[in-house]
């Protein structure tokens, strides 16, 4: 219930529990069996399929869809998970509209791709629900690998190493494994605690020990791991948050989007979360969309996203942008924040419109506007925490790796958001972890 009287902002319980439950239901409800069979029939079973090429983990998509057609659901799930152990989460969060589904040849035929993401979820859901073990471990190698980071890259690497016969210790800085799957992804994309179900499934292979609440730098160093283990994989993500770099960054009401999302994901009762009346989000990536849509769904009256460039440059896909817009979020392009207004507490934020100068460089114009704001979310990206990677070669704030995810140190590999060439997608992180594990296995068996 929205109070008509302006009260202390932000506040909780803007919506009833039932409304919030409805707002945070499954974004894409799963396919029924008959829906899945009909959709699977639309797959042309392409040769050297463009969808598979477009998948960062190279899942044999026509192969798994054909197995859905023949009711070989376990085989279908194996086809998916053997390439992407987080195929369940990726089925929910992958921007399929710019990956496999964009490549689907049906787009050329009728402008409607096969719903690959939903079919992938259909094939994998039963495996997680029934905890069906599809993998086994090779004979023990006697080698031990340290994996730093309990997110998609780290867990993917750990799982593949475990199947290859190595023992793994995962050092996880959070109190639960899962990384951004657990703390970062919008709640309506992964309901019913799926992230932990997936983690449980991954760990059920055996040979993986997870140590939570331990952080590199604070509790151990990279050098210690190199001394104690046969190899190290870093899937440490981007732990530091970019700042606006303007006065008032520390005002009450100016928050980091990822921290609020993490709080939201861990909340037992979402209606108890404080929500702004007028929420302004600065940024253009998935995090900006996620925080904006979730704020709206928690009951914020007005939510604005402000991005310094145009819709084509946004990190969020068109589909995500439209999701925000249909959720009632207003997206302003071509504007950058100029200054925050308010005493100790933010009340509004002023923007300058932007355009390209003669040299094609983005610059602020004299044209400005002000948006009321009791909450301003910064969603302008994260960066590597400086002291995480003292010994490694770093470029543009990311760890430099080669095609096999090898770093500048012979016994250290890295993957996920923390490396160069990353695209901040779960699916890419999983691929990095997998590729690194295969490289580590080769290294350990030399």
């Amino acid at each position, binding site marked *: 219930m929205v109070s008509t009287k302006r009260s202390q902002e932000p506040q909780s319980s803007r919506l009833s529990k039932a409304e919030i439950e409805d707002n945070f239901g499954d974004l894409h409800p799963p396919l029924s069996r*008959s829906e899945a*069979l*009909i959709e*699977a*029939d639309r797959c*042309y*079973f*392409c*040769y*050297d*399929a*463009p969808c598979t090429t477009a998948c960062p983990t190279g899942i044999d998509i026509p192969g798994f869809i054909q197995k859905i*057609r023949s009711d070989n659901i376990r085989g279908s799930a194996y086809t998916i998970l053997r390439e992407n152990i987080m195929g369940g989460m990726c089925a929910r969060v992958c921007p399929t509209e710019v990956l496999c589904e964009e490549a689907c*040849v*049906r787009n*050329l*035929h009728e402008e409607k791709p096969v719903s690959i993401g939903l079919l992938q979820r259909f094939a994998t859901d039963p495996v997680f629900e029934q905890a069906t073990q599809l993998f086994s471990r090779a004979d023990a190698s006697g080698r031990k690998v340290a994996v730093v980071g309990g997110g998609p890259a780290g867990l993917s690497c750990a799982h593949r190493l475990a199947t290859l016969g190595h023992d793994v210790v995962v050092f996880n800085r959070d109190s639960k494994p899962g990384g951004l799957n657990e703390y970062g992804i919008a709640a309506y994309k992964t309901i019913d605690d799926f992230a932990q179900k997936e983690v449980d499934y991954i760990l059920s292979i055996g040979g993986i020990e997870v140590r939570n609440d331990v952080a590199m730098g604070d509790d151990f160093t990279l050098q210690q791991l190199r001394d104690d283990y046969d190899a190290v994989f870093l899937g440490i993500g981007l732990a530091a948050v970019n700042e606006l770099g303007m006065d008032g960054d520390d005002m009450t009401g100016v928050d980091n989007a990822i921290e609020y999302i993490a709080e939201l994901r861990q909340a037992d009762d979402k209606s108890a979360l404080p929500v702004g009346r007028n929420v302004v989000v600065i940024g253009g990536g998935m995090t900006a969309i996620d925080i904006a849509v979730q704020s709206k769904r928690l009951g914020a009256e007005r939510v604005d996203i402000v991005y310094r460039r145009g819709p084509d440059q946004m990190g969020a896909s068109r589909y995500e942008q439209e999701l925000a817009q249909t959720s009632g979020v207003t997206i302003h392009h071509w504007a950058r924040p100029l200054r925050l207004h308010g005493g100790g507490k933010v009340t509004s934020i002023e923007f300058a419109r932007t355009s390209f100068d003669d040299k094609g460089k983005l610059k602020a114009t004299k044209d400005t506007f002000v948006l009321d704001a009791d909450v301003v979310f910064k969603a302008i990206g994260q960066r590597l925490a400086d002291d995480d990677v003292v010994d490694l070669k770093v470029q543009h704030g990311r760890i430099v790796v080669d095609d096999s995810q090898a770093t500048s140190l012979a016994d250290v590999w890295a993957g996920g958001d923390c490396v160069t060439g990353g695209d901040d997608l779960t699916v890419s992180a999983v691929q990095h972890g997998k590729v690194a594990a295969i490289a580590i296995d080769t290294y350990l068996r030399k």
Partner: protein
Amino acid sequence: MANLTSEYLGIRSPNPFWLASAPPTDKAYNVNRAFEAGWGGAVWKTLGEDPPIVNVNGPRYSTLHSNERRVIGFNNIELITDRPLQTNLDEIRQIKRDWPDRALVVSVMLPMDEQTWAKYIPMIEDTGADGLELNFGCPHGMSERGMGAAVGQVPEYIQMVAEWCKKVATVPVIVKLTPNVANIVPPAKAAKDGGADGVSLINTINSIMRVDYDTLTMYPTTDGMGTHGGYCGEAVKPIALNMVAEIARNPDTADLPLSGIGGITNWRDAVDFLALGASNVQVCTAAMVYGFKIIDDLVDGLSAFLDDKGMASVSALVGAAVPSVTDWQYLNLNYVEKAVIDQDLCISCGRCHIVCEDTSHQAITHTVNGERHFEVIDEECIGCNLCVCVCPVDGCITMRPVTDGIDARTGEKINTEKANWTTHPNNPMRKQG
């Protein structure tokens, strides 16, 4: 508008679409609904001797489905009518009285003795029915008792029973043939020799649909045991068309009026049967899958087709394609075609490439200048049509006749003269010039 009025063996009907003898024609109620919907005629479900047979009280039907559960094939173990003879006769009489412009033929199946046929045929004719159809086709149940397909598989029996019937019948007699034979022509010839006025075909094909994957029994069963049934529906049409064409093109049987049956679902299926020699068509499965309303598409689809072809009546279409059916040995071996892919329509699925690569003649590219690109390699293409068959885009791959110049595959000049196997040098039995 083309005239769809049909006359088969002198039996007139407003259109050439009859309901086949089957569950949809078992009762006056159903036939009445069919005629209200616009069906041109009906062959009443097969009558037998009293006391009537009994049916199982469990599943009679089973299907071959596509994934979206479209019925592709259909199978049944229902027997002939299980109602008392007099009930059927009374209802037939009433229907014929109520619908005098529709064709009403009665199917009949009786034991193998002349007196029985002589006794029942006048009783059936007394209803006013337009004709008789002798059921020598049912492959299940009745055949175990020496009737149905058990008769249809022995030409001598067909001829004998046809003769018995013709002795007493005053209305046209049609023999319904079973496809469960090695060669359809001898049964058709036997019907003709027995004096039958026409043959209808095909009846259903012996079949078991599948097993139950839980119980590992056949499926469906009656209390754990099952039996083969008769297969029909869209999947059997090609088998039926071949049998119709075989009779239509054989000099011994070419003059035998045919009623085509087997998987007719839309007007194009009807065109297939008519063009290959059937004078009219009978439908069952499509009605059992979709209801009687499909007659709308059958009627106006055929009518529009005849108009487009400039044909004034159905009879102009009957047999039009028969002269194009021949034996393999007479096919022109000098004729060459190559596949052509329309690059504007191609969606790059690669299906043509992989089937040609894996199972045919490696005649379609996958990559050209480093790009995903599918193109026919004339030097390898044997013109087999496989790529056309598997391409999901209608009209994307077509076959192009090569009528002059050099065949890129053989390097030989195209020979425009026809030459077939009968004169081919590789044929040890070739006719010497």
